[in-house]
């Protein structure tokens, strides 16, 4: 007979209340949940209950965060993701979403590149906040990621990338995500990866503007380990702007494809 307390198994004895668990935690908790509902120290516990005890505002330690992710994702998956480095080129509507998704999933390290600052016109789809307008996107996204998962190692590159240096900048990543806005840079990114980054997984994007059909966004394999996400036709243009939902669909295709590749899905039928 056992309880789950903060995702860890604790022996259960008949007649236990939350007070018994609080005393074990040193009493330093003010958020008490049982099976997802708010509770008090008097709440009676039953075999199999899921309990959460937390101090408001406490930042989980690296160990605690790791344990939470292990419990949610399974240890094999999490151990793999934790050892990986992912590069993201461009931190706009795609890149900011991809970075946050990967940080939530507990990727080990992120290498983030952008030269731009947060503008009011970005806020319709990019993950920045009103109070970050005018900040460098690298700085703003770093701050957001710290709040999501402070144990992801984040390195930022605050300059414009060029086809000639992409290979050198991202030579140590396991996967590279192309989230550029300009089509010329999208092509440059793919060429650079194909020429200079053998063995690095690559997930690019093309065709995600507007509010077209959800399922027209797809993930297409170009070469082994090299993919492109999008409908490949919907360009950002007057009358067809970039909108949070469809850009988000594409970004999450990219993030999931990275996870799939890192976890060995390349060998499965795509």
């Amino acid at each position, binding site marked *: 007979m056992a309880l789950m307390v903060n995702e860890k198994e604790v022996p259960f004895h008949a007649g236990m209340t939350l007070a018994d668990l609080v005393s074990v935690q040193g009493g330093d908790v003010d958020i008490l949940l049982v099976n997802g509902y708010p509770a008090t120290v008097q709440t009676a516990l039953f075999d199999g209950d899921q309990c959460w005890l937390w101090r408001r505002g406490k930042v989980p330690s690296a160990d605690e965060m790791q344990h939470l992710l292990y419990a949610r994702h399974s240890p094999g998956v999490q151990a793999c993701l934790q050892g990986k480095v992912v590069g993201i080129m461009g931190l706009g509507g795609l890149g900011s979403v991809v970075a946050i998704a990967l940080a939530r999933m507990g990727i080990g390290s992120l290498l983030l590149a952008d030269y731009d600052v947060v503008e009011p016109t970005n806020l319709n789809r990019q993950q920045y906040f009103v109070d970050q307008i005018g900040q460098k996107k690298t700085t703003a996204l770093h701050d957001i990621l710290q709040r999501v998962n402070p144990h992801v190692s984040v390195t930022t590159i605050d300059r414009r990338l060029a086809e000639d240096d992409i290979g050198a900048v991202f030579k140590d990543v396991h996967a590279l995500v192309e989230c550029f806005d300009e089509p010329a840079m999208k092509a*440059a990114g793919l060429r650079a990866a194909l020429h200079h980054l053998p063995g690095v997984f690559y997930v690019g994007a093309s*065709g995600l503007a507007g509010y077209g059909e959800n399922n027209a966004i797809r993930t297409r394999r170009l070469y082994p380990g090299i993919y*492109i996400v999008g409908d*490949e036709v919907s*360009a950002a243009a007057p009358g067809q702007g970039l909108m949070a939902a469809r*850009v988000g669909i594409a970004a999450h295709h990219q993030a999931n494809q990275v996870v799939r590749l890192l976890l060995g899905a390349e060998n499965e039928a795509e």
Partner: protein
Amino acid sequence: MRILCNGEAREIASGIRVTDYLDQLGLDALSVVVECDGKILTREEYGSHALQDGAVLELIRFVGGG
């Protein structure tokens, strides 16, 4: 002469360079990745590489937005 472009047979002028062929297709060369006979061309090769009869061309075209 004939080439295969993205799986479709196309009749093109003999010896045409990649950059001119992309132009004919109405494509901005900057936004296209070109694979010719299994090799990814560098940007510099777009202007120098002449298509040969029977060439197998794969064009990966990008549109803006991110």
